[in-house]
């Protein structure tokens, strides 16, 4: 039977074999040290390239989308349709003076952007972009995601505190209160997915959605968990309408008021990559990540869907979510601090608990679609 006959393609749905860089390196490790060192190098090059390119693309997109939402054109001058605007801005930030204000805690002021960007890079490492493009795939994946995204707040808190500036201080305190509060709701939403998937490994979670994505397979609780996760993580990355820590009309620039030049760029980059990460993780947990749109049992339909490569599915889902988060910014006005806290502690948290127990009942009695597989 020819490989190219349509019957062969349609007959059996594709089985995705997860071979991340780390697992390949681990199998190569007893064989040759050089080979595994090569894998590590490859992973490092890939993550750094991903960080730089996503950063450039997202900042350009944000400005273009903001422009078009307001009937403007956005950047147009540097390069065709302004595509080199971000590059020009990066160079500008690089040659700007980078100073520490008088009376600031010098060590912490320098260390804070390090912490913010380190948390972001450590999250990029575990994001599954396709069965192959995932640098590390740990067995505690979901816990790791929660822990490291909580770690990002340290950079903001230290940056604001060490600046010896009242705007920075207020912004940092607000950021701390906001991020830790919304982390609870994000965790409760992720617990719903862990209940359904029965694994914490990110590649395992994606593969558990081979019969359908959890957002529709989980009979309603998936949708609620998804909405809670998107709201909570928008708040965790300080995006509008939750940009209270850097509300420019009240706090100058919030926690990064005293940052200039390249260290401001690090905060800025971390913020944009975090947006990509939040979209990527929401897609992974609720929309199946790189898993094509499958319906359990419909093998013919599934194999047609498999014709689109896994990486393209991930890219499409993540871009859609990134656009959603950017859309929020031009749709919702900024919340007040008390409204923001009320939303979390009096609405999202109780709803999250009820949803978690509803999900437990759904899993217990197998009420979701295709429970047998």
């Amino acid at each position, binding site marked *: 039977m020819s490989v190219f006959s349509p019957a062969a393609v349609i007959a059996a749905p594709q089985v995705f074999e997860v071979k991340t860089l780390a697992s390949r390196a681990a199998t190569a490790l007893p064989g040759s040290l050089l080979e595994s060192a090569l894998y590590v190098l490859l992973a490092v090059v890939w993550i750094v390239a991903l960080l730089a390119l996503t950063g450039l693309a997202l900042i350009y997109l944000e400005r273009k989308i903001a422009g078009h939402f307001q009937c403007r054109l956005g950047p147009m001058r540097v390069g065709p349709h302004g595509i080199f605007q971000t590059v020009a801005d990066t160079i500008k930030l690089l040659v700007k003076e980078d100073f520490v204000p008088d009376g600031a805690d010098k060590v912490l002021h320098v260390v804070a952007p390090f912490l913010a960007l380190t948390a972001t890079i450590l999250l990029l490492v575990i994001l599954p972009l396709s069965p192959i493009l995932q640098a590390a795939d740990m067995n505690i994946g979901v816990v790791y995601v929660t822990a490291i995204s909580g770690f990002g707040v340290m950079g903001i808190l230290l940056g604001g505190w060490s600046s010896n500036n009242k705007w920075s*201080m207020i912004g940092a305190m607000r950021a701390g209160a906001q991020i830790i509060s919304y982390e609870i709701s994000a965790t409760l939403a992720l617990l719903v997915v862990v209940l359904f998937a029965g694994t914490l490994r990110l590649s395992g979670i994606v593969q558990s959605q081979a019969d359908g994505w959890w957002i529709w397979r989980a009979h309603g609780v998936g949708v609620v968990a998804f909405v809670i996760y998107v709201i909570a993580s928008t708040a965790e990355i300080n995006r509008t309408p939750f940009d209270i820590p850097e509300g420019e009309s009240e706090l100058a620039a919030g926690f990064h008021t005293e940052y200039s030049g390249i260290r401001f760029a690090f905060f800025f980059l971390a913020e944009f990559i975090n947006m990509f990460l939040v979209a990527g993780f929401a897609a992974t947990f609720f929309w199946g990540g790189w898993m094509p749109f499958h319906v359990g049992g419909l093998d013919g339909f599934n194999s047609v869907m498999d014709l689109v490569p896994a990486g393209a599915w991930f890219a499409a889902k993540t871009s859609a979510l990134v656009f959603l988060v950017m859309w929020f910014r031009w749709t919702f006005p900024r919340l007040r601090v008390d409204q923001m806290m009320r939303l979390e502690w009096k609405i999202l948290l109780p709803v999250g608990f009820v949803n978690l127990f509803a999900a437990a009942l759904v899993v217990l009695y197998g009420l979701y679609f295709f429970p047998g597989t």
Partner: protein
Amino acid sequence: MFDYFLILVFTGVAAAMVGVVLLIARVIAPRGWSRSKGRPYECGVGTIGPTWIRFNVGYYLFALLFLVFDVEAAFLYPWALVFREVGLTGLIEVGIFVLVLIVGLAYAWRKGALEWV
């Protein structure tokens, strides 16, 4: 274990990347000091009083509540992981555990700890 080793590698990579870029900036960016430039930016008005003062107690209350619920989430992860094996018994046990915390939340709510002042 190799995955954890990679995480360690990337912690170093992140630090090295930021360090290298900082070094480049240090070489090509201008540096200088003047009295007015070093002052904290508070919209042009001279700063009054120290920055590091005692802060609103509201933040502290929310941090305490966060601690309770975050530790609770850490306990819920293993339960969610093995939920298919522990079944209804596990659900009831976790229900009792979470109920205690929810009573705590209700108490904090009733006492007004969730009101922002």
